[in-house]
């Protein structure tokens, strides 16, 4: 019967719970969900990871290809991250080109992770050849904070990438790939993203579920590695005071350290 009440009056349903300082899934407002990280789950990709935050699942696969560098940056390679929200992850999406939400998420993840790889180390031959890392993050279960899962999955997958050695013959303009000599990509930073939702313009819920996100009056995402901040993204919605912001940043910092440790363990456990 609770299900019917929830379907008819979701806001009231939540208010009743939050009045007791607990969320319908049993968490306190500031509690985040369990994160599980699984590295190198897809053998057809050059690097991959599966990340779950509660029910939310994102799988990230990296395919390395060879391409010609841009004319204005002849020594750099490319990192092409894209978030996909396929219709299978939630009834809100339809097949076809990426929804607006997917585009916003793609842009957010690209910005938050932009400093992770020095594009110059992806160059192979000046003006001729460079690595193109196609990073595809596919959401398999959309239950809130997908962008957080994407950032963690990308960060993990990037650490599992092993690129083969490539020689480029300037005369014949052909590359030769040595499949058995592989090197890892040097990853410079380890951002972790943590999202918050504001309910009824005052209660801040850490790591909200999809339902909490849809009922929220504002959303906030903090990207940090525990020390530096890479992004504080609050796209409008109800207002926040500085104190509230600071609280969120400290929760995010604490979680970043925890998650980064998990990524380290997951990457380390991959058989070499």
């Amino acid at each position, binding site marked *: 019967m609770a299900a019917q009440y929830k379907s008819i009056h979701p806001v009231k349903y939540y208010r009743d719970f939050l009045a007791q300082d607990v969320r319908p899934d049993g968490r306190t407002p500031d509690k985040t969900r369990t994160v599980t990280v699984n590295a190198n789950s897809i053998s057809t990709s050059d690097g991959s990871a599966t990340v779950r935050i509660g029910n939310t699942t994102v799988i990230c696969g990296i395919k390395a290809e060879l391409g010609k560098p841009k004319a204005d940056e002849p020594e750099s390679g490319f990192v092409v991250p894209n978030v996909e929200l396929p219709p299978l992850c939630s009834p809100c999406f339809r097949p076809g080109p990426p929804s607006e939400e997917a585009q*916003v998420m793609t*842009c957010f993840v690209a910005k938050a992770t932009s400093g992770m790889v020095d594009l110059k180390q992806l160059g192979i031959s000046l003006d001729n050849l460079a690595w193109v890392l196609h990073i595809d993050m596919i959401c398999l279960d959309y239950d809130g904070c997908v962008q957080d899962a994407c950032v963690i999955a990308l960060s993990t997958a990037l650490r599992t990438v092993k690129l083969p050695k490539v020689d480029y013959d300037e005369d014949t303009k052909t590359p030769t790939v040595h499949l058995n000599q592989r090197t890892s990509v040097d990853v410079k930073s380890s951002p972790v993203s943590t999202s918050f939702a504001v309910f009824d313009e005052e209660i801040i819920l850490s790591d909200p579920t999809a339902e909490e996100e849809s009922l929220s009056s504002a959303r906030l995402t903090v990207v940090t590695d525990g020390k*530096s901040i890479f992004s*504080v993204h*609050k*796209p*409008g*919605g109800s*207002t*926040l005071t500085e104190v509230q912001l600071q609280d969120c940043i400290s929760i995010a910092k604490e979680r970043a350290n925890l998650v980064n440790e998990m990524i380290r363990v997951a990457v380390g456990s991959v058989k070499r």
Partner: protein
Amino acid sequence: MSPSTSSEAVEDQKLRPFFCELDVLSRPDGSAIVSQGDTTAIAGVYGPIEAKPNKTYIEKAAIEAIYRPKSGLPCVPDRMSESTLQHTFEAAILTTAHPRTLITISIQEMQDSGGLLACAINAGCLAIMNSGLPMRFLVAAVNCMIHENGDIILDPDEKQLKESCAVMTFAFDNVNKNIVSSSTDGSFSETQYQEAILKCRSACDEIFQLYRDIVKKYAPSMG
């Protein structure tokens, strides 16, 4: 119409000259052009109009923001600005006053030499004011950057931005001066972030004052 100006000198702690004109377009219900330094954006507000069935909310108006880049079609980064604009205006407009309708705010980039998002928010807010839609509060956005040497520079121009290690844009409301939106690029420390908020908040007062001047100036013509 003579544009309202702020201080002429562009110093680190001052905003660039702020020009604004209202009612610049005839078709929309409200419109405004804002330029801050060389950065210019034009905004038009349409609505409330009848909403499509799948975009109708029973209890409030749907807000749609359309962001158009200077040339070409909008691409992925533009969608992110669009979403920030949409949610910022949604907070500012009293949406419950026009349930089951659609309000469209269309913003055209004219010139970007730093701080375009802030300029767009300000133009949008003025256009909404101009359209006469009821609002919860006004918003003012300020752009700032962190210089490579750690200094915080308010409302930087294109040249200064080349030496930045992080850029931030904040929008504040005029009631409690709380943060409506925050958008950042690059990495920084928590103290730098707090400092930036403080500086931008004090600067936003200046913009609210400008809003007041503009309304005063246009008040007779608005009737």
